[in-house]
């Protein structure tokens, strides 16, 4: 079971949360102009990253707020928790590209006690920030 650090409530068991899939998938800006292929992409196609993945979680039996999380889909290490609407912390994108599940010593927020509403410490340490996900600032 994952121990997830809700930005509002602190660390709680995974069973209190609801998984919301890939983060940063914006609603189409001009829906009327989308063709069938583009609608299919928006409705059915999501990244299925092996490595560090940006995803949404809902603290359903706690504060009932959505937030974003960077989690390694191989080791299940949680690397960052950050608010909806803020960009994906950059360092973990580099980790994802290296394709490994290994983590920097300071890169996990799992079990950290205090609630926090900002992206966690790894955000600024990036040397390779090219993220593969959708436009930043996309929410919900």
């Amino acid at each position, binding site marked *: *079971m*994952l121990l997830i650090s809700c930005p509002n409530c602190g660390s709680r*068991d*995974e*069973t209190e949360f*609801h*998984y919301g*899939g890939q983060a940063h998938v914006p609603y189409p800006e001009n829906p009327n102009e989308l063709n*069938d*292929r583009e*609608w*299919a*992409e928006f*409705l*059915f*196609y*999501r990244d*299925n*990253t*092996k490595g560090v*993945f940006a*995803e949404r979680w809902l603290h359903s039996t706690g504060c009932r707020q959505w937030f974003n999380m960077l*989690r390694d*889909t*191989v*080791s*299940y290490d949680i690397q960052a928790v950050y608010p909806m609407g803020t960009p994906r912390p950059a360092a973990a994108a580099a980790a994802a590209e290296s394709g490994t599940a290994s983590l920097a010593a300071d890169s996990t927020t799992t079990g950290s006690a205090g609630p926090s509403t900002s992206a966690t410490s790894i955000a600024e340490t990036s040397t390779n920030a090219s993220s593969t996900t959708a436009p930043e600032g996309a929410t919900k």
Partner: protein
Amino acid sequence: MSADLLPEHPDFLWRNPEPKSSYDAVIVGGGGHGLATAYYLAKNHGMTNIVVLEKGWLAGGNMARNTTIIRSNYLWDESAAIYEHALKLWEILPEELEYDFLFSQRGVMNLAHTLGDVRESIRRVGANKLNGVDAEWLEPDQVKELCPILNISDNIRYPVMGATYQPRAGIAKHDHVAWAFARKCDELGVDIIQNCEVTGFLKDGNRVVGVKTNRGTINTEKVGLCAAGHSSVLAEMAGFRLPIQSHPLQALVSELHEPVHPTVVMSNHVHVYVSQAHKGELVMGAGVDSYNGYGQRGSFHVIENQMAAAVELFPIFARAHVLRTWGGIVDTTLDASPIVGTTPVENMFVNCGWGTGGFKGTPAAGLTFAHTIATGAPHKLNKPFALERFETGALIDEHGAAAVAH
């Protein structure tokens, strides 16, 4: 039941050749689906200069991890057709492959616990009958007659209000199925290479012309992906996307018991499914973990829920011990139906998205996928399961009949 004893495990079922520098077709993934595809490519289409590449050991992925339930009582015409075709193949395969993999048609019950379940189940029985799939609706006392250890009292949280029953459904020894296919593939000249991971693709324009592996480059005219949990990783290497999400799914077994559980019981609502293996273990599965995952393990709270449901339905299980648990990585789609067909890359074909229920489909997946690879066109049974359906909207929504929530 054909035999109570397991067949001897022969020492050598297939050769372990070195990979050649070129093949007419490369099948990626040595699980049941990859092996069945290679078998039908050789048998039905005369393609024998082909290879199955497996990154680990033969059939060590989901093929070795599933709960081995085989049935064809799906709701929609397209699914009923392909799964029923698979079931008909299961019925003749032990003889055809000359290998007894203990296919046991002991019947499968899908329990109903709410009025909604009851209505949906009776609808499914009707749909099954119209599609030539054997199906019956059972009242609680008939359920009890078939599986006496089931608790049908009405004072539990989710009482058994009846069940659908497919008498021809059952279980088979999954390892032996893989070995049976592998041995026949080998006899037909197919190379099976273990510890050979595909790490990239060679393309000429938009056409695939080879695969890169940790054991060198292999040129080929055609590539068939049968990589279950890793399909989207391979698709990404090839330059296209799949509407697939990979999730951990786990199962567990008890220690050996006297025969107590004569059939297969599944419950989608309280979420447990149980059969008793030939040797005597109680084999149980549950739902997928909610999040994406590539780790071959699952969450403990899923087991807790599954055990709670199992003990309420089968009070005598309360004293059984769990012997071991394990996980697989299943590749799910949004309509809970597989994807079998062509891809945006020329000469590259994909068989994936069987999610939590692809073991039962193994022979039909292999047969239809082989047809697609050999001819470049869909077989009539896999045509509806093309990737295009996510664009056309012709989805085959089998969530209700998939039996595992995902």
